[in-house]
């Protein structure tokens, strides 16, 4: 029994992996016939491949954990960042022009009320639920703001806007859709440099709802200013900001939403 070329260790590895061409494989197998110990060793190597697949292939059929899928999707937002930044810049430019025209407009003044209505309670609950989230505070991030606003507008059945609070040191984190109350609800989340968060709860109101003044409510640790304005009811919630700071933000939100 003689082989044309000496058998190398690398070729034994190739054989075990089924990566030799047919003629060389035949030569190795002829050589194995004359070298049973080497044949046994190579067969063991080949067997490991099968064992590895038997043991680990079932993992391919396991359902993908949601957090992993979110991690895989996240980047489509990251890549949208440059475009989103452009839209934000445009929005600021438009906002500045609009701002000149509404300087005379008055926001409603706050008035007290004894028991918080549904909107304040639900807004506070939604705030308490999502604002502590570190990894997934929002469904759609601020880097996809255009998509976020379009999506929420469609679901709420009217033009929804995400106010710009950058002037108050609050950057938009993003938003999410919340369960019906009784209609669909949007939540926008903002965060300042210290990580303090504010959420704006927006729901559609029935046609018979009158506009209201700002009202203040407190649910547990969460402070809420809420008001109704035309088609929508709004509630601005925070567990971190003092009442006066929150009122100031509520005024900014109101002015921006009423150009």
């Amino acid at each position, binding site marked *: 029994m003689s082989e044309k070329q000496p058998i190398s260790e690398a070729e034994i590895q190739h054989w075990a992996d089924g990566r030799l061409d047919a003629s060389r494989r035949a030569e190795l197998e002829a050589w194995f016939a004359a070298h049973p110990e080497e044949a046994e060793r190579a067969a*063991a190597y080949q067997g490991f491949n099968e064992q590895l697949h038997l043991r680990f292939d079932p993992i391919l059929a396991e359902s993908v954990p949601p957090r992993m899928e979110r991690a895989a999707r996240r*980047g489509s937002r990251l890549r949208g960042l440059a475009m989103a930044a452009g839209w934000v810049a445009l929005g600021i430019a438009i906002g500045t022009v609009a701002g000149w025209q509404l300087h005379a407009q008055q926001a409603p003044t706050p008035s007290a009320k004894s028991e918080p209505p549904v909107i304040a309670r639900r807004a506070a609950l939604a705030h308490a639920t999502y604002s502590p989230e570190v990894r997934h505070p929002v469904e759609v991030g601020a880097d996809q703001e255009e998509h976020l606003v379009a999506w929420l507008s469609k679901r709420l059945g009217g033009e929804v806007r995400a106010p710009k609070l950058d002037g108050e040191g609050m950057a938009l984190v993003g938003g999410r859709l919340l369960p019906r109350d009784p209609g669909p609800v949007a939540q926008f989340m903002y965060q300042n440099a210290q990580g303090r968060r504010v959420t704006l709860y927006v729901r559609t109101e029935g046609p018979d709802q009158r506009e209201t003044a700002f009202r203040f409510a407190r649910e547990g640790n969460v402070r809420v200013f809420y008001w109704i304005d035309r088609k929508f009811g709004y509630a601005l919630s925070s567990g971190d900001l003092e009442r006066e700071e929150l009122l100031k933000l509520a005024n900014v939100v109101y002015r921006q939403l009423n150009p």
Partner: protein
Amino acid sequence: MSDAQSLIEQIPRLRRYARALVGDRATADDLVQDTLERAWSKLHLYRHGTDLRAWLFTVMHNVHVNRMRATRPTDPLDDDMPEFAQRATQGDALVVRDLERGIASLPVAQREVLLLVALEDLSYGETARVLGIPTGTVMSRLARAREKLRAFMQGKGGAMLQVVK
């Protein structure tokens, strides 16, 4: 197909490899999670049209190496010391258990090569690119890994050979 969809498609294979590489499910899934997050931050380095899966294995390799450095700063990766001590128990009849112990007993540099070639079916050249080593090193690590695994399995009463034949 979007990048996100392409990435999602790769998740099952990343999980299979990670599980074989690190052993337990929670650690493996954390490794996949970190890999996906890092992949997004490095996506500009990925050349479209090339093998996304191989590129993701590279990302995972780097994440894994960094994690090991963070937890065991003095450990060289290429030496012959196993990543963690695994001693086989006597009389364990389950071949798959032995296989997992045998894999865990390999130095991580050898384990990566063995798994990329034997489980993930990467070519020797792809494996070399994923790990950033010469193809010759792939072949020598592969040979050492297999021989070490064989010695480990023979120590288990030759259960493997019966399965193979």
